[in-house]
Every structure is written in structure tokens, then in C-alpha cells.
């Protein structure tokens, strides 16, 4: 009895060792798109800049990177030539990056509240050089904007002794200035404002000169702000002098800036501000004895820092918005106007201008003005080069064809320039668009585009591709005559010779489709819109929070189509779309082009919220309702308010059902057919809704109200303890169930509890001490609690991850409670299985029992907890076409890996002793608390798949294989075969040998057959 089982086990072990992803498969079966996120363009401290390393190098070899901080809390560097990610540093969510600055090969960043953490990186490799906590994050002052009280200034590159200096002056928290060595993180000295000053002065700028470091802040007075300056010794940190300037600034930082010229030591830094339109300047001397001067002659509306404040350049806008470049000057009031941008006043012909400063290889500054011209329908760039034409300056202007239909509007421009010839200025522009794309333009030609909004996917779904028909138009008409059919079939037969040739070729060369081959076809070929042999190629339809929807080829991550979501009437006032759900409403099996419905909440800037539906052809991105229209997709205002929840009615028509706040039911498509279909099942429909931390079960009234809409009413409320709040509702994953039960070793059966209404609910009870999290399994149609567990809430938060499929619940939590001596803190995974009845062979037919039957609560469960060696950020199960393959748990950990944990390991019925023969027959093996961190189980190879928020899975055409798509910051997709690819011939199957053996045998038979018959005949004659 046990011998064969053992051999089976041995075989299984062999299979297990062959499971791991082979290195040769990496990049073939999977793809990974590292992203940095959408650049934070709101402030110069975080906006993208070109940074050139080596410009101070006499040899003249320089290398550029584009540095930016992003909305995904990443500091990243892109390669300007290719757009590839050079490096990135991902900050923790509680440590938002608020500022970065680069000089030469060092990038320094401040992150956390008030700039609590200082980091320095190598600008070209991204290696973290040093990290220093400057103040406790909880003592950080929260400013609006977050980087108000933080600034970084670099001293002269070489100090007096000619040694290269790596020090930086770091102003944090609006009151503390430090001199820090960026290579070591060592703090040379600290200056801090007095406690009294802290309450009304916020220091926001640092300027470094060889003789003094100036911390410049604004003092809050009852009516306005007043500049405050501290001159501090750069070597010791002692205060040399302090001064309040007699200023009267109304708008804070928008009318105030500090400029200096780091290339000329003789020019002292200037504090500049606007006082009722007049520009006031004050030169900074170590003694702070300078006078406040006025630059007369012009009235300015605002002044703009273009990133060249340390090169003495900025842009001032006059009252009609016409822009003027102003330069620091050591004569007169300290500033002089050097150029007025022509036609920059407000006009209907073009949009408001954006300004950016850039440097060329030799370090000369340039100022660019960028706008969208309505007249020519193109974006325009005017780049002013102050040093050219013997210092008289030169403007280079051109337009470039930015595609607004694809990328929205330009939000930010970073400028890099080259001056290859005397009167030629070449500009490289790094654009950030409103749809979250970043682009590099070299003069008027686009070099590359990165769709960084894919780091903010809110809803995604796999869509199956249609099969390429060998014969087109086979849809036979109902009343086809015999003759017509004969002719059609004969016509179809003309394909036969090619088919036969192909077959012979395939047979001879053995070039069949292989499961380990990539499902990628050449780009732009129409093949990518057709299914491959095994259905590994699908379209991932992903909607992002930046108002764009993408169709992504699941085999290589290429974007097949992308569309902007139009705002409808809110176009006038502005607004944005928040995608709620994507539903596949028509699949290939419906015999139509696959279609998806995207449900979004449109948050208009005037505060109105609408629910909008986009009905899209999943293959092309075209609008189904208005196929011909180009440009942004125009949605359909589905509900003129928020919706509470939306569902897909799994019927022939696949109707989208949305419930608004008045519990009215909205249907899409709202046709007579779908209404009739809905009213037919309305009586049977149940759904739970979350309300005030509770779960309320609802039903629909069988007949429409006066408003012609169906209305829902509450039927039950969750009876959790009163202090418990619901934090998550996890529905059971839909999918075919291949087996209704689990057969035990003695051939009795545990019938799976397959209640289709099962939902998992996560709760928190914050008021209890210590706070606990609850994990419940509910009958979602009537609210019965079937399973309940309390787990500790580490740090008062419930980030319990759970996934529920069939009768199997797996949840992961962090256990910080140590009760006994032998316990330890750590991640726990709990596996729970529910079975019908109370013992083996009990059968309640839970999958088709009415909710009004008492039998639905007859359930027994097995559970087992395991120790996970890593923290989990997202979790899902594999899904296959018929549900025959076992289901693996796919999870991502904090180390940016994606694991697949086999179901066998998580089986809650694993015995806690040596398994008996019967248990071995079930392939159960002894329980071990620790789930080993098996590198062979990492499906993400050695990619760092950062910040995965969600994993979706989808069946391939092969039963054994499941497709996985993980999104968050990065995108990653692969395919896994939890039960190995049992439905395809093994790769190393020797086809040649088989063919040779068969043909050798055939030849042998042909040769020996006459020999044998001759022998027989002879035997008859000469029989003894």
C-alpha cells in the first residue's frame, strides 16, 4: 500500500523541482515594466530637471540624467537618450519625498514631515551614499506646500584650500540649518531658530556664499509677511548677523525669491519681492547692512523662479502677463531686465505660458517659454539664450506637434539646451502631460514617451482575444440551399493545399507552438489582436486615475491602444475621472468583438459628482456607441450622482447594475431587453452594501417605482459587535468548480461548502484594547456569520490581506503579540477550508440550496496557520479555464517579489504527525509552521516589482495555465502552471525518436512480411 504512494510522492518531488522558473524563461513568459510614477510638477523642488554630470570636468565628457520626484513617492532618474529608467529610490509611504537637488554626481533629497530625513545618492547609479535623520518625523512641522520650510544649497564646489567639497547646507522644518557632508551624512554644525522665532518665522531659503550662509525666511505680521535674514558663518554655524527687512509681502512665496549668481563671487545674493507691483531688492552682505532698493519703471504681477535662481535669472510677469527675463546685476537696484518675450501677453490665440530654465554643456543658462498655440494647433517653444550674439541675447523659436488627443495638455516642461554652432540653439524638452505621460522632444521631434500614469491603474481586466479564422465568413445562413453550400465548401477547399503544405512542414520540422515560447508577435502586425495557440495573449484593459484607458498586450506589455477619457460637460469647469470598475460585457465566446464597460466617478471641479460609463471595444479602444469619433472618448452620464456600488449581472446580456445613494437601481445598457431580463430575476437578487462601517443586505423590489426605476431595500444588517467597523469586503472569486468535494484516503468525501453567496469581511475594532481585527465569512445574501476569527491589529491598523476562492479562505496578518516564551512576532498566513455538514460524507448541496434553508449554515471548517517569512502587499489565486488545476496563491511581498504558494503547502488538513498511509494517498504531508522562503517559488525572476497593489489572474486557453498581471507602481505579467503543464507534451519529449521508431518498425514489417509467409509455406510442405 505504501510503496507506490511513496513512489508517487517521489515523482511529485521531482515535479516540484522542475517547477521553478527557468532563467531562460525570464523575459519570454513574463515582462516587467519598471515605472517611476507621474512627476510632481507643482514645485521646482520636486519637478523634473535635466542634470548634467561632469560639466565641471575639464575633459568635457558629460552625462545627463533627467531627475524627478513623482506622485508615487519615488525619486527617479531617466536616461534622456532612450527614456530607460537609470535608477529610482522608492520612499516609504510615511516618508514622502519633498525636495531633491543635484550637483555634479550627488543628488540630495529631503523627505518626511518638515524634511526629517536627509539622503544623498550617486546621480548616475542611484546608490544611496548616506542617510541621516534630522528630526523625529512626529516633530516635523507640516507646511502647505510640504516643501515650504525646506531648502538645500551647495557651497562652492572647491573650498579655499582647493579641496573638493561635498558639503551641503540643509534647511529643514522651517527653522533648522545644518551643514552636512553628503558623502558621510556627518552633521558639521546645526543652527536653529529660537523657540520664539519658530512660532512666527518660517525660513524657506538658503543661499551660500564663501563668506556667509544666509537663511531667509518670512515673518508673519498681522497683515503681511516680512523678510527675515540670518547670516551664518559657513564654517562654524555661528550667527554673524540678523536682520528684518522692511518689506510688506502679500502673497507669501509667490512674490518673494532669492537669487544669486554662483558663477560670480563678486555679485552678492539678492532678496527680491514684490510690494504692490514694485520689485524690491536687498543685497545680502555678511554684515546685513545692505539697503532695500526699488526697481522702478515696471509693475509686475508675479515673479517666477525658472530653476535658474542660482544663475541670477528669473521671469517676472507684468500686469498683462507679458513675460520679462530679469538678471541679477551688481549695479543699480541689483536687477536688470534683459529680454521681453514677444507676444507673451494674455491672448485668445494661445494658452498661458510656461517657463523653464536650462543649462547647456558649458554651463550657460537659457530660459524657455512654452505655450499651446490655438492658431496653428501646435505647441510652441521660444528659447532665449542670453549669452549669444556678444551678450545681446538670441531667441530661438519653433513649434512642435504635440498630440493632445493622445496626451492631453502639457503640464510641465524641463529644458536642456545645446549650442553646437554659433547661432544654433538646440533644445531638448522633457514634457509632463496631464495624462501622466512624460516625453522627450529633441527640437521638434519626439524621441520617446513613457506612460507613467500606468503607475496609477485603478481598475484592470483581462480580455480574451478572438481566434484568427482560417476561413473567413463561415457563418452559414440558415436557409442555404444545397448547391450554394456545395459551392461555398468547394471554395473553402481552395485553402486545403496551403494547409497540407503547412501540416507537412510542421510535421517534418517539428515547429509547433510551444508553451515556453513567448506569445509575442511582431509589433504593429494584426496578429496581436488574435489569440495565440494557447491563449497566452490577451488584452489587459487598464484605466488610470489620470483620465486615460489603455489596452495592453499581455504577452509583452506593449500598449496597443490608449484613449483619453473625455470630461463631457465638465470640460468647461475641469475635473477628473476616478475609475471605479471595468467590466467585460462581451467576450469572444459571445461571437462578437470583445467589449468592456468602464465605470468612473467624474469629480468636476465645481464639486458635482457624476457616474459616467464608457463602452469600449476592447480590441481597438473605439467607442461602441459612437464608433467613428476620434479624440477623447466621450462617456455617457449614467447616474447624475455618486453610486454606492456597482455590479455585473451574470446573465446573457451582462448588464451593469449600479446602485445610487437613494438605493435606485440603474441598468446599463438600459434597453427594453435588459430591463425585462432584470425584472425577471429582480426577486432573486441580493447584494450587500457597506454603510457606516456596517454591512447591509439588500434586495430589489420586483416592480419599478414611479420613477421607472427599480428600487432596493435593506433586508438585514451585519450583527458584528457594535464597535467593529468594516474595512474590507472580499467577494468570492468567480470561476468554474471542477470538483464538488474532496475525496479522502478512505474514499469518503468532504463536500466543499460552495455557497455562491460567500463573502469575506475584514473589520477593525479600534476602541478595544488592544485593538483587534476581525475576519469573517458571511453568507452575503442573508448575513449569517459562518466563520469568525480575531487577529491582532498591529499598530492599530488592520491590513489583513485575504483571498477567497471556492471554499478556501487564506488571510495574512502581522502578529505582534507575544504571549508565551516560544512565540515570536511575524507575518502569519491562515488557511481555512469550509466543508458541508459536520462530518465526512455529509451533503447539504450548498451550491444550489436556497438561502431560506437552514442547511446553509451547516458547515464545518478546517484551519491552519503558518508563519510567512515576508510581509504581503497583495494576494490573489490563480484561475484556470475549467478549475481543474489546483489553485496556487499568488502574493507579492515587501521585497518586491511575486511568489506562488502551492495549495498543497497551505492545505489546512496537513497532519501534525507523520502522515498515515491514507493521508499520504491524499498527498498530505506533515505540517510545518514555517512556509519556507523558497526562491524557486518566486515567479518574478530577479525583477524588482515595486509597490504592487493588486494582482489579477485570468485563465489561458490551456487548462493548466493561468495568466497573472500585477500592478501598482510597476507592471508585471507572467503565466504560471500550478499543476504543471499536464495538457501539453513535455518540451523534451523526443518526437524524432518516436517518428524514427514508428517508421523503423513499419519498414521492418514490410521487409519481414514476405519472409515470414515464405517460411510458413515451406513449413507446410516440409512439416515433419
Amino acid at each position, binding site marked *: *500500500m505504501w510503496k507506490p504512494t511513496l513512489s508517487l510522492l517521489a515523482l511529485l518531488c521531482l515535479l516540484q523541482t522542475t517547477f521553478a522558473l527557468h532563467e531562460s524563461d525570464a523575459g519570454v513568459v513574463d515582462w516587467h515594466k519598471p515605472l517611476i510614477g507621474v512627476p510632481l510638477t507643482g514645485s521646482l523642488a520636486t519637478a523634473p530637471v535635466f542634470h548634467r554630470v561632469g560639466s565641471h570636468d575639464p575633459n568635457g565628457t558629460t552625462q545627463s540624467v533627467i531627475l524627478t520626484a513623482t506622485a508615487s513617492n519615488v525619486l527617479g532618474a531617466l536616461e534622456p537618450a532612450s527614456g530607460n529608467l537609470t535608477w529610482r529610490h522608492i520612499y516609504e509611504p510615511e516618508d514622502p519625498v519633498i525636495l531633491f537637488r543635484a550637483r555634479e554626481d550627488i543628488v540630495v533629497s529631503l523627505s518626511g514631515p518638515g524634511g526629517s530625513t536627509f539622503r544623498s545618492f550617486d546621480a548616475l547609479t542611484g546608490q544611496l551614499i548616506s542617510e541621516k535623520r534630522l528630526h523625529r518625523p512626529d516633530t516635523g512641522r507640516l507646511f502647505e506646500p510640504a516643501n515650504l520650510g525646506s531648502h538645500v544649497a551647495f557651497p562652492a564646489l572647491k573650498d579655499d584650500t582647493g579641496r573638493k567639497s561635498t558639503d551641503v547646507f540643509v534647511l529643514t522644518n522651517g527653522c533648522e540649518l545644518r551643514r552636512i557632508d553628503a558623502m558621510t551624512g556627518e552633521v558639521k554644525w546645526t543652527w536653529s531658530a529660537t523657540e520664539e522665532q519658530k512660532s512666527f518665522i518660517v525660513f524657506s531659503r538658503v543661499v551660500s556664499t564663501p563668506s556667509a550662509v544666509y537663511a531667509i525666511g518670512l515673518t508673519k505680521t498681522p497683515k503681511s509677511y516680512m523678510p527675515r535674514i540670518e547670516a551664518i558663518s559657513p564654517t562654524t554655524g555661528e550667527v554673524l548677523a540678523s536682520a528684518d527687512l522692511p518689506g510688506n509681502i502679500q502673497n507669501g512665496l509667490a512674490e518673494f525669491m532669492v537669487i544669486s549668481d554662483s558663477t560670480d563671487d563678486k555679485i552678492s545674493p539678492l532678496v527680491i519681492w514684490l510690494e504692490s507691483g514694485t520689485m524690491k531688492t536687498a543685497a545680502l552682505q555678511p554684515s546685513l547692512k545692505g539697503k532695500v532698493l526699488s526697481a522702478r519703471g515696471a509693475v509686475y504681477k508675479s515673479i517666477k523662479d525658472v530653476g535658474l535662481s542660482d544663475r541670477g535669472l528669473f521671469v517676472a510677469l507684468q500686469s498683462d502677463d507679458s513675460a520679462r527675463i530679469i538678471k541679477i546685476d551688481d549695479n543699480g537696484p541689483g536687477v536688470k531686465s534683459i529680454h521681453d518675450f514677444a507676444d507673451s501677453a494674455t491672448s485668445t490665440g494661445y494658452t498661458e505660458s510656461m517657463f523653464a530654465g536650462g543649462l547647456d554643456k558649458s554651463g550657460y543658462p537659457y530660459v524657455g517659454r512654452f505655450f499651446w498655440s490655438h492658431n496653428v494647433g501646435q505647441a510652441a517653444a521660444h528659447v532665449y539664450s542670453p549669452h549669444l550674439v556678444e551678450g545681446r541675447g538670441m531667441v530661438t523659436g519653433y513649434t512642435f506637434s504635440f498630440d493632445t488627443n493622445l496626451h492631453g495638455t502639457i503640464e510641465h516642461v524641463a529644458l536642456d539646451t545645446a549650442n553646437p554652432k554659433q547661432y544654433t540653439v538646440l533644445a531638448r524638452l522633457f514634457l509632463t502631460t496631464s495624462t501622466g505621460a512624460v516625453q522627450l522632444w529633441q527640437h521638434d521631434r519626439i524621441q520617446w514617451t513613457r506612460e507613467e500614469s500606468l503607475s496609477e491603474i485603478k481598475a484592470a481586466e483581462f480580455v480574451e482575444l478572438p481566434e484568427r479564422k482560417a476561413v473567413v465568413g463561415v457563418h452559414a445562413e440558415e436557409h442555404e440551399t444545397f448547391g450554394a453550400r456545395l459551392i461555398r465548401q468547394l471554395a473553402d477547399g481552395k485553402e486545403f493545399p496551403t494547409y497540407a503544405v503547412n501540416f507537412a512542414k510542421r510535421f517534418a520540422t517539428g515547429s509547433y507552438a510551444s508553451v515556453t515560447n513567448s506569445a509575442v508577435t511582431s509589433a504593429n502586425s494584426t496578429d496581436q489582436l488574435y489569440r495565440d495557440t494557447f491563449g497566452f495573449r490577451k488584452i489587459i484593459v487598464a484605466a488610470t486615475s489620470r483620465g486615460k484607458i489603455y489596452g495592453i498586450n499581455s504577452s509583452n506589455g506593449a500598449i496597443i491602444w490608449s484613449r483619453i477619457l473625455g470630461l463631457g460637460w465638465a470640460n468647461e469647469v475641469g475635473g477628473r475621472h476616478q475609475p471605479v470598475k471595468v467590466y467585460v460585457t462581451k467576450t469572444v465566446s459571445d461571437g462578437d468583438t470583445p467589449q468592456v464597460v468602464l465605470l468612473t466617478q467624474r469629480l468636476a471641479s465645481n464639486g458635482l459628482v457624476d457616474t459616467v460609463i464608457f463602452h469600449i471595444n476592447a480590441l481597438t479602444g473605439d467607442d461602441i456607441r459612437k464608433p467613428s469619433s476620434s479624440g477623447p472618448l466621450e462617456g455617457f452620464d449614467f447616474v447624475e450622482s455618486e453610486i454606492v456600488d456597482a455590479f455585473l449581472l451574470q446573465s446573457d446580456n451582462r448588464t451593469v447594475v449600479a446602485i445610487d445613494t437613494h438605493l435606485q437601481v440603474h441598468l446599463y445598457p438600459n434597453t427594453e431587453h435588459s430591463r425585462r431580463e432584470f425584472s425577471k430575476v429582480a426577486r432573486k437578487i441580493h447584494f450587500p452594501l457597506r454603510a457606516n462601517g456596517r454591512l447591509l443586505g439588500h434586495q430589489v423590489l420586483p416592480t419599478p417605482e414611479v420613477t421607472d426605476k427599480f428600487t432596493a431595500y435593506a433586508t438585514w444588517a451585519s450583527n458584528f459587535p457594535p464597535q467593529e467597523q468594516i474595512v474590507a469586503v472580499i467577494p468570492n472569486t468567480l470561476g468554474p468548480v471542477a470538483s464538488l468535494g474532496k475525496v479522502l484516503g478512505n474514499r469518503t*468525501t468532504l463536500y466543499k461548502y460552495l455557497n455562491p453567496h460567500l463573502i469575506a469581511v475584514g473589520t477593525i475594532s479600534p476602541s478595544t484594547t488592544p485593538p483587534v481585527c476581525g475576519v469573517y465569512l458571511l453568507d452575503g445574501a442573508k448575513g449569517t456569520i459562518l466563520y469568525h476569527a480575531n487577529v491582532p491589529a498591529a499598530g492599530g491598523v488592520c491590513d489583513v490581506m485575504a483571498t477567497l476562492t471556492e471554499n478556501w479562505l487564506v488571510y495574512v496578518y502581522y502578529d505582534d503579540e507575544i504571549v508565551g516564551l516560544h512565540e515570536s512576532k511575524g507575518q502569519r498566513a491562515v488557511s481555512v477550508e469550509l466543508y458541508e455538514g459536520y462530518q465526512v460524507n455529509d451533503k447539504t448541496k450548498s451550491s*444550489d440550496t436556497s438561502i431560506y434553508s437552514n442547511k446553509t449554515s451547516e458547515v464545518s471548517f478546517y484551519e491552519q496557520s503558518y508563519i510567512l517569512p515576508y510581509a504581503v502587499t497583495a494576494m490573489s489565486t490563480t484561475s484556470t479555464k475549467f478549475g481543474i488545476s489546483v489553485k496556487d496563491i499568488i502574493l507579492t511581498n515587501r521585497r518586491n517579489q511575486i511568489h506562488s504558494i502551492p495549495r498543497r503547502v497551505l492545505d489546512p488538513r496537513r497532519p501534525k504527525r507523520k502522515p498515515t498511509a491514507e493521508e499520504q494517498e491524499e498527498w498530505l504531508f506533515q505540517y510545518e509552521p514555517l512556509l519556507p522562503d523558497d526562491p524557486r517559488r518566486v515567479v518574478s525572476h530577479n525583477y524588482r516589482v515595486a509597490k504592487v497593489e493588486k494582482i489579477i489572474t485570468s485563465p489561458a486557453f490551456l487548462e493548466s495555465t493561468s495568466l497573472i498581471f500585477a500592478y501598482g507602481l510597476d507592471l508585471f505579467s507572467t503565466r504560471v502552471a500550478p499543476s504543471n503543464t499536464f495538457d501539453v507534451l513535455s518540451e523534451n519529449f523526443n518526437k524524432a525518436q518516436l517518428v524514427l521508431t514508428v517508421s523503423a518498425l513499419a519498414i521492418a514489417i514490410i521487409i519481414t512480411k514476405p519472409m515470414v509467409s515464405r517460411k510458413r509455406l515451406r513449413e507446410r510442405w516440409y512439416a515433419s
Partner: protein
Amino acid sequence: MSTKLDYASIDNPKWRNLPPPPGFASSSSTTRTTSRPPASASASYAALKERRAWDQAIAPAKALPMQAFMLYMSGGGVQIFSMGIVFVLLLAPFRNTAGMNKAFAPFAPTKSDANALSTLPLQKLVYILCNILTLGLGLWKCRQMGLLPTGTGDWLAFETRGVAPEILLR
């Protein structure tokens, strides 16, 4: 060609009228040709036939211990060897029963129809019972090997479930 003792024609063998081989005394043959066998001899033939019939009837039972030993030796796994033995065990009773009349025909009493079911009824009944024993052993082995669909698990694949009467939207 196998040699078999022909009990059915023991009373009147077909070789009786052959001439004796050369060198054999013809004296005995003269007495034998005329005289009929004595009644006692005929009775002992009948008893012999009956005994042989009983032997045949319980032969399957006698083989049981040996078969059980072989089953034990063949192990519990589903392998070619054990499966072969089990197949023999399962098929033999049916084959035996089917060929029962033929098997008992040599032992049939002189006057009865040798191939009729009603001859030697007791022996045939016992023979059937013994074959059932063999079958039972075979089935027991099948069960031990888990080849009999006796558990609910064996019928799970044929179970079906309908559609749930209520719909939960999600």
C-alpha cells in the same frame, strides 16, 4: 495432446475389442470377451466417479490458500503482477461456471446425460459456491487495492448541482 483419464467410458472402453499385442496370452482374453464385468466392479466405478466429481467440486476451494498466499506476495499496489493475479481470480469463477457441465461430464453416472445441468447437482452447487469463494477473494483484493467504487468519493464525479435559486451580485 494431453492425456486424460476417461472415466465416462470406463464401463465400456472402446479399446475392448482390440486384439491383444503380440506375445500376450490369449487365454485371458477369451474369458474376458464373454463375461460381463461383475456388479461390484461397476459399483466401485460409480463410487470412484462420484469421488472424483466431489474432488472436482471442491478444487477451487482447495486452491484458495495458495491464491491467498500469492495475493499476499503480489502486494497491495496496482501493478501488472498483482493485477494479473486479480484478473485471474475474478475471471476464473465465471470461466469455471460457464464450463461447469463440461468439466463434470466425465464424472456423470452412466445412465444420465453427461452434459445436463441436472446431473451431479450437489457437486455442481458446491462447485459454484467454491467459485464464489474465489470470486470473493478476488473482490476482497480489489477492495484492498481500492478498485471497488464503494466510497462516496468514487461517485463524486457524477454528482451535479443546479443553479442557485438566489443571485448575489458582486
